């Protein structure tokens, strides 16, 4: 852990990943709420031909030039996908899929073209596919900080407008807000986030950095502001821990580890977040089922008592179950304090009578709650 502060390479990698986490988490929150999670995926994949073209046109290996090229191509793909959606009836996912795969295919073609042409200077362009965090140097981190800073500043400046257009675009337009323009701006900010991630996680895995932190953050809060902050935090956490783990051993690529770290955060949030956690849901369902089961038993007991004694034998016959099960059921009712054993079989306690009365009332007003056996 201490190496984080002393090791030059590791510090850069960790900083780069953390910046990616912050900006991806923040922008991903809006992307997810706008149901455009996968637009980020398209953007990222589509960056590849842009990177290659930027290299072909300028001949430069300067990362910022390549990133800008990638960003422009991603932006173009997103714009085209939205144009196809606006003007045809093609389903959304198909439109996104078409843009993703044709741009990426073109990128692969360009990449191989470059590699065949001047092998000596192939520029390590393929590092942008899966990312190669180890190549991040201090200058890259400065670039990332610039891009991320721009994206976050604009996000803060237009926060109120983004929030309204995301929640209720029709109403926003009635207030005179340029809804389409704001949408374009948000997409452009996602492009900035993708540019930060190209070198760290690469075009293929970028989607995870936009979606998973936001989905995890949603589990913990009902406030957009808090969700943004948490999502950025989760992203940064995943970035740093991914970088640390990958430094711990040889041959551990950073990008996939960052993605796995963020997936792990999501998994924990999905299961254990208070209120929205799935585990609590299951516990509640189980408890409900148990409660309904006991209430049904009590009503059966009441029905039996109206004609005769409440014994395990009678209950077993009534419910068509084994004697052992009936005995167990009576014991469960006794544990609830609803029945008590007596000389002539079980009797209802006052609490049990009270409860049975309530149940019968509920049954009368809402017959579908307790279907008769």
């Amino acid at each position, binding site marked *: 852990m201490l190496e984080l502060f002393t090791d030059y390479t590791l510090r850069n990698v960790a900083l780069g990943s953390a910046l990616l986490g912050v900006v991806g988490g923040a922008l991903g929150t809006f992307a997810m709420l706008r149901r455009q999670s996968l637009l980020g995926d398209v953007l990222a994949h589509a960056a590849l031909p842009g990177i290659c073209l930027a290299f072909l046109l300028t001949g430069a290996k300067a990362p910022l030039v390549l990133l800008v090229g990638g960003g422009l191509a991603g932006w173009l793909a997103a714009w085209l996908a939205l144009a196809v959606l606006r*003007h045809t009836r093609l389903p959304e996912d198909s439109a996104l899929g*078409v843009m993703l*795969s*044709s741009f990426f295919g073109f990128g692969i073609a360009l990449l191989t073209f470059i590699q*065949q042409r001047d092998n000596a200077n192939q520029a390590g362009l393929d590092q942008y596919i899966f990312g190669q965090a180890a190549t991040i140097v201090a200058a890259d981190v400065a670039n990332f900080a610039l891009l991320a800073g721009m994206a976050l500043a604009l996000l803060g400046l237009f926060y109120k407008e983004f929030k309204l257009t995301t929640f209720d675009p029709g109403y926003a337009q009635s207030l005179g807000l340029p809804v389409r323009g704001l949408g374009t701006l948000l997409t452009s900010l996602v492009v900035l986030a993708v540019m930060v991630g190209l070198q760290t996680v690469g075009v*293929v895995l970028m989607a*995870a950095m936009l*979606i998973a932190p936001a989905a995890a953050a949603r589990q913990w809060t009902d406030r957009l502001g808090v969700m943004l902050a948490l999502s950025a935090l989760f992203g940064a956490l995943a970035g740093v821990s991914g970088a640390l783990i990958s430094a711990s051993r040889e041959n*551990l690529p950073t990008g996939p580890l960052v993605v796995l770290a963020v997936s792990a955060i999501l998994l924990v949030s*999905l299961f254990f977040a208070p209120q929205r956690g799935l585990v609590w849901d299951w516990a509640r369902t189980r408890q409900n089922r148990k409660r309904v089961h006991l209430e049904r038993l009590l009503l059966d007991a009441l029905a039996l008592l109206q004609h005769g004694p409440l014994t395990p034998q009678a209950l077993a016959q009534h419910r068509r179950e084994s004697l052992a099960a009936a005995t167990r059921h009576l014991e469960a009712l006794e544990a609830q304090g609803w029945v008590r054993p007596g000389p002539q079989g079980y009797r209802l306690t006052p609490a049990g009578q009270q409860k049975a009365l309530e149940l019968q009332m509920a049954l009368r007003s809402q017959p579908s709650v307790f279907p008769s056996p």
Partner: protein
Amino acid sequence: MNPDLVIVTTAILVSSASALVGTFLVLRRMALLCDAISHAVLPGIVLAYWLSGGARATLPALLGAAAAGLVTVSLVEWLTRTGRVKNDAAIGIVFPALFSLGVLAVSLYFRQVHLDLDAVLYGEIAYAPLNTLWLWGLELPESWLVMGLLTLLNLLFVLLFYKELKLSTFDAGLAASLGFAPGVLHYALMALVSFTAVGAFQSVGAILIVAFLIIPPATAYLLTRRLPTMLLLAVGVGVVASLGGYALAIWLDASIAGMMATVAGVCFALAFLFSPLEGFLTTRLRRRRQRLEVAARLLVAHLAHHPQPVSEQEIMAEFGWHPRFLRQAREKALQAGWLEARREGLWPTSRGRALGQGPSVP
């Protein structure tokens, strides 16, 4: 055997097999789900490779890929069902995680073996003529056998279950109530997609297979609304992409699979612009015509209301039209025979008056 021929026929087989199942993926709005499946094929293959002790056999790879595909689909469906995550987000969560596992395993354990990451991306269709096997005394490319069988399998599936697929695609509820088990069909389709993805994996790579599964059917979708035509067109676009892509790749010395995806994308762009059904430019023209038609009708209806001739100024003020637009609308009305030019100005003809004000526009 002629290597060009082997490569091109392999590509045509890949694109035909993909287009057949891809058509239903597009119609069922599962295009991005299959993107996820194609990514998840990687860990499946790695697992199969590892379990089979490092031999690069086709059958374990197929099984591993199918299993990975089904795992992806079930995970996405489960995540969506929890209600905590929307379907598209679920896809975007599952596939990077699985793909990361695959990449990690490759770089940890299979660094120096066949399963390099380049193959994941580009595929090795250029090597298709080299991998041959002897069958009935003939030396045949392995890719012919694998992709031929897959194409046949997909074709049989579509032909045998055509009615059921059609019904469950358009109305899953009705299909279920008629006892057609749309769930089983759904998973069968997903398994075939996984098979196709892994079969094609060797040729075009895991990621570009999406181009073959989605782009040709999506192009066909822009051109027709009839299912049989769409299937045929999708296969046709796939073949065009294979041939054109190969030619371009040879010319530029670039990745064959990448070029094929590029050409498929160009086909889609052309269909988007010029489709008679809902092409961008076609619709533009039609809209313009329509707007003029509406304007002409409004103009005639307006003139028919007034016993005296109305000046152009008044009309422009009334409708908020520009002079140019008014001229075009008047031209249109004159052409349609709704107006006639008299000495005192424009006058609605009897046909123009009969037009009425009703909404019964064609």
